[in-house]
């Protein structure tokens, strides 16, 4: 349902970084596809209520606040959640549709109610904040019901961007994992959702799975007092979104297979299994909604081997959005090529971007494996994996990740990856590391060494 009535929808550009040279018999073509959306006019705006000149907000947002009984322990959690939601509401631009949902073992409309959405303006923002005072803790946690209600409400508005913000402090105990999974499947593609865990009693994998399925971000807010800032930032990001339902469409030639597709910046997100066929030899991978931003995708295509001197289009990577008439509109495209050569120096060199993101993906993987091993009591395995993680984070310039790792292990030698597990690790530190393990940094430009944290 993307609409392009707005004059300043962002422009998309696709850049492909790869070493297109393959040795004789070579089949695997790796490429980093960088997608950059610019011109949406949202860069740098900070929560202004007013829409830009001549534009009407085209978004609907549902805020889902955990109101389970545990939110009262400590009571500051509930208070902070209320304040954070209020701050997020203050960030809503005039004209944006919104609703607040209170979540327990069932979902309740806190504002505006009656199965509809409010339209943000001075009065409705105030009423919503009043309504927040009614929020009280009590009950269980069944996140699937929250999501289904959000979906129903968001569907009532004819807008381009539909987004949810979900806050939880505990495990999804009052419905089965299958029920949550079914809810995520039902909502997938209908709206995007950021998920936040507050405190340390929630399950990292649950929260990251929600964000992953609904193409949003996941993070931890260990200290409830940080919620307001976080909510404000999230809402600003949502307000910056201009185009929804964007898919990365990969065309590959006859006989080729897509080995994998993953988003690698700003965070690692596996997309391979989320393909939907889109005509002969083409498939779409969902990317959600876009504002002014840039993301990188690592695409690996296995093509039929060809003779030296031959050239093949290994993949055509394009960004597409559904058009009103049911067809799709191509926003930008890039070509991934394969050239077979007998020049070994050409075919053996690895593209720096590909190398960098291969390392980033491994980093995310070994952190996860290391933490899993640690929980399982496999100290040797945990030490090896986390040691490797320290080594990779150091080599790749993931300074934030390196700091998080240093709270879980004592680093002896970064270059060698020698570490010792800390005897005592704060839950918050471990959960922060796990939640943020997929965050990546981009390749450092030779001129400026600022790793742009996604």
């Amino acid at each position, binding site marked *: 349902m993307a609409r392009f009535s707005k004059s300043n929808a962002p422009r998309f550009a696709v850049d492909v970084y790869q*070493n*297109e*040279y393959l*040795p*004789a018999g070579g089949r695997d073509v790796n490429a980093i596809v960088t997608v950059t959306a610019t011109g949406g006019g949202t860069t740098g705006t900070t929560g202004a209520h007013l829409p830009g000149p001549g534009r009407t907000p085209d978004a609907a947002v549902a805020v889902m606040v955990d109101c389970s009984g545990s939110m009262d322990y400590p009571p500051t959690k509930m208070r902070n959640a209320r304040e954070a939601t209020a701050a997020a509401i203050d960030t809503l631009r005039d004209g944006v549709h919104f609703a607040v949902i209170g979540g327990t073992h069932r979902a309740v409309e806190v504002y505006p109610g009656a199965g509809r959405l409010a339209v943000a303006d001075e009065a409705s923002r105030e009423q919503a904040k009043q309504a927040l005072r009614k929020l009280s803790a009590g009950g269980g946690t069944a996140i699937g019901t929250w999501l289904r209600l959000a979906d129903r409400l968001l569907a009532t508005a004819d807008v381009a961007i539909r987004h949810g913000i979900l806050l939880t402090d505990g495990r999804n105990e009052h419905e089965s994992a299958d029920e949550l999974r079914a809810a995520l499947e039902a909502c997938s593609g209908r709206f995007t959702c950021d998920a936040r865990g507050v405190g340390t009693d929630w399950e990292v994998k649950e929260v990251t799975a929600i964000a992953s399925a609904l193409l949003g971000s996941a993070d931890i807010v260990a200290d409830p007092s940080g919620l307001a800032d976080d909510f404000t930032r999230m809402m600003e990001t949502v307000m910056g979104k201009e185009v929804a339902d964007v898919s990365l469409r990969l*065309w*590959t*030639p*006859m*006989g*080729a297979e897509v080995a994998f597709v993953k988003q690698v910046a700003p965070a690692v997100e596996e997309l391979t299994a989320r393909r939907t066929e889109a005509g*002969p*030899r083409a498939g779409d991978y969902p990317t959600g909604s876009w504002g002014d931003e840039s993301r990188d995708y690592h695409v690996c295509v296995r*093509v039929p081997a*060809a*003779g*030296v*001197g*031959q*050239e*093949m*289009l*290994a993949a*055509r990577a394009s960004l597409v959005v559904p058009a009103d008439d049911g067809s799709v509109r191509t926003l930008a495209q890039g*070509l991934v090529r394969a*050239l*077979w*050569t*007998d*020049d*070994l*120096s*050409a075919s053996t*060199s690895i593209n720096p971007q590909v190398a960098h993101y291969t390392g980033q993906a491994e980093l995310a993987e070994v952190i996860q494996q290391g933490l899993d091993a640690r929980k399982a009591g496999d100290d040797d395995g945990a030490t090896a994996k986390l040691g490797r993680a320290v080594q990779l984070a150091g080599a790749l310039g993931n300074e934030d990740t390196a700091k998080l790792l240093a709270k879980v292990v004592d680093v002896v030698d970064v270059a060698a990856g020698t570490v010792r597990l800390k005897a005592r690790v704060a839950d918050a530190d471990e959960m922060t590391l796990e939640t943020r393990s997929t965050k990546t940094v981009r390749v450092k430009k030779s001129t400026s060494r600022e790793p742009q944290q996604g």
Partner: protein
Amino acid sequence: MSQMPQSAAGSTCPNPACEEPVESGDRFCGGCGYDLSTVWAAVGDRPTLPVNGARGDRTGTTRQAPRGSGPAGLARPGAAHPGAPEHGAGAPGAGAPGAFVEWPAAPGTDGSELPAPVHLPTDLPGTDSGGGALPTHTEDAVGPADPATGERRPTPPAAAPEGPGTAPGPAAGPSAPPAPPAPPQQPPSFPAAGAAAAPVPPGAPAPASAPNAAPAPQPAAAEPEDYELAAPRPPAGTVLRDDPPGSGAPADPRTVVPGALPAPAPEARLCVFCATGRVDRDDYCENCGKAQPRERDHVEQELGAVAAVSDRGHRHHRNEDAFAVSSTALQDGAPAVLAIVCDGVSSASRPDDASSAASRAATESLLAALPRGTHPQQAMHEAILAASKAVNALAGEPGAVHAQGPNHNAPACTLVGAIIAKDLLVVGWVGDSRAYWVPVDRSAPAARLTEDDSWAAQMVATGLMNEAEAYADERAHAITGWLGADAYELEPHTAAFKPDRPGVVVVCTDGLWNYAEGAGDMASILPPDAAQRPLHSARVLVGHALDGGGHDNVTVAVLPFPAPPPGAGSA
């Protein structure tokens, strides 16, 4: 993985992108429709060729150098000449054609005009074939150097380039410069040079002797980059430009290279490979993804007296060679025919653009300069400078930022060109693309007219290695001179000859000469009727390279000498 050329020879379609098995006798490839006639023609031609001069010329006369040094004339490029005559014969040097023919004196040789630029022998240490000192460059000794490494990589000259004043010879190394190249004015005795002539001390005048009707030696200082060879004078009445070389003639915008690249025939909207997919705008099949044959994959052009063919070859994904052929009229109305052949440096970015730009710029420059009466040799010099400028300009273009592949060097290419103007044959070059002279009467020896700017040639020239050693080295084909912003110092080489008999000039990239390195080899694969059928001959030569494996792009221009009478031109 250096497959040798033979692997695919003849058994698969020469269209590098196809490689459908084909059988001898097939006229077209069943896979892509490639015209196989030239391929088989090449194969067939060989046996029927008259033996090249090898034996015969032993005693035959050599073509004489134009005024000035005869030998220089055709064999100028130092070390090269010896080889020519005795190709095929075991003993280099043995066949030194002793007799020499008198070259006709250049018109207007009275020396009233500005002197043509020349070098003193001392300026060119190491580039001569001075007998023993320099190993001769016989084709037999060297062999078609490693076609597998068809690509060239520029390397810094081994020896520090000398001052600008120095000669073409890359780096005349301080170390033991062997005999100087035939000095100007040297007698035409080509033979002596090649063979055995005693080593000539550097600085000494070249071997041979009898200066023929050559005009007086030119002042060396005039133009450093030039060979003194022959330094033919401009036709009487014409004025030699005295601009400094740097001020090369600006290309005349009104002059266009007539069809430097024939228009493509992009009707093939169905993939030529799988025949099921349509072809996308960007020339890939939407079904099998294969890149469709491109305009430059195979280009042919015939323009009256001159013809050229360029082919991608079997092992490269695109054709990085380019050529331009043209004809014009000199100031006095006499026809002039010219060909420029360029080979993009694969290890640099956009080599195909570089070669294309260089060939166009050089041709435009020549077409502007020749009708104005510029001496052809001077015109060639300026054309090379113009080409250089054009290639340098590519480095500044925005497109250069996103260099494809692992290479980020500035675009670069080689260049070789030939002009036939009345009784004058002028060649010019930078890099390792070559020009060969093959007399119509094959009993006379063929000769290579250019001296590569290559690592091997440099090693040999400076005496650091003998030819066999140098060409066996993996760096042998690294070039030491090229056009492009990364070039250390541009040293255009030019030479002028006054052949005393009809013949054919073959101008080519190493994609061909890797399969026929010696002048005798080249002569042996050139059809006997090359002067009458230049296009056919160019196809045959390209077919020879493809048949041998086509490891590199192949480009050949064939120019008959003398140029056929006016009427064929298209100035």
